[in-house]
């Protein structure tokens, strides 16, 4: 009998082991735990709001199919996000290289600072557009660092590179994105 899910807050590694042993509650817990991170990552990387749900689902399915390949070197979430990145790359390829960053429909601002909200929305669009045009490694390193708060060692393990290279990718990404905000 393999490891089963115990009470408390099991780690991702414990949940993965429990799922491998046939405990479906572990899969439920892993998906519940990481869904929002995957959604944010995919949206930041260029997925449209309309497709982000399906892509998130695909990322989890693919992750569970190849769960045996996760050795625990990188954090489960970082590993999962690289899978999501692969799925998005395939999606971009299906569109024959067109990276579509849809400018999301925004409701008219009705708050105290309508101009500020609009400006924030425009800045978000510019950042997303800029991210979608970065080389993949730069984009993923930037998002892992900024959205997930991963350090360079963790990013390097997830993306199969070195911490030094990850740091260089990050700073290249920042430089190019700053040019878009100016």
């Amino acid at each position, binding site marked *: 009998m393999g490891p089963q899910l115990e009470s408390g807050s099991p780690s991702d590694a414990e949940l993965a082991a429990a799922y491998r042993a046939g405990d*479906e509650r572990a899969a*439920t*817990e892993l998906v519940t735990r990481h869904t*929002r991170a995957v959604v944010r990552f995919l949206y930041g990387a260029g997925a449209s709001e309309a497709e982000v*749900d399906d892509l998130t*689902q695909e990322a989890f*399915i693919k992750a569970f199919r190849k769960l045996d390949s996760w050795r625990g070197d990188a954090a489960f979430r970082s590993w999962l996000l690289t899978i999501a990145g692969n799925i998005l790359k395939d999606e971009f390829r299906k569109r024959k290289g067109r990276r579509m960053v849809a400018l999301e429909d925004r409701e008219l601002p009705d708050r105290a600072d309508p101009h500020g909200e609009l400006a924030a929305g425009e800045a978000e669009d510019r950042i997303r557009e800029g991210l979608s045009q970065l080389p993949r490694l730069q984009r993923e390193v930037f998002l892992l660092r*900024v959205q997930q*708060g991963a350090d360079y060692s963790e990013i390097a393990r997830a993306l199969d590179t070195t911490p030094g290279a990850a740091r260089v990718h990050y700073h290249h990404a920042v430089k190019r994105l700053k040019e878009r905000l*100016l």
Partner: protein
Amino acid sequence: MTVEQCNVLSDRIPDVASGSAQWSTEEQDHLASCRECALEWQLVQRAGVLGDRIAAAVDPEAMAATVVGRLQREERVLPFRRPGWWAAGLVAAAAAIVLLLGPFGDSDPAADPAADVVWLVPELDSLETTELMSVLASFDPATPDEVLMVPFIDDLEDQELEQVLQAWEG
């Protein structure tokens, strides 16, 4: 303000933006006076919350139910996609063919004389006596020696020949 200060700050911006670190007084002073660092700070803060609105609208439990449901369906279907199942399927199909068509090498007419007789019976009238004898013998292949012991017409005595002819002609 030096490039070195900018580099240090640049490395720390994501940590401070995520709340896992805080600015020192010196860093705050630098941020207030350096346009490049201020822009980077703004960039990282905004990028850090990209997709928060959409993520908040997603129901993680519903997503989990969908994903687990798909995994369960795959679990029921996937075994038949595995190579072992294909091999087993081929073996089963081959066995079924053998059972339906009979074992290989069973095409020897002597092994199933009745089948040959069915085809030969309509042509009995045109057979020569010796051929007819062979056909008769094939009705019971277990006793070929007995058939061979039946005398040929050429070997019959006149009296015996007449009896046979009378029997044939009525």
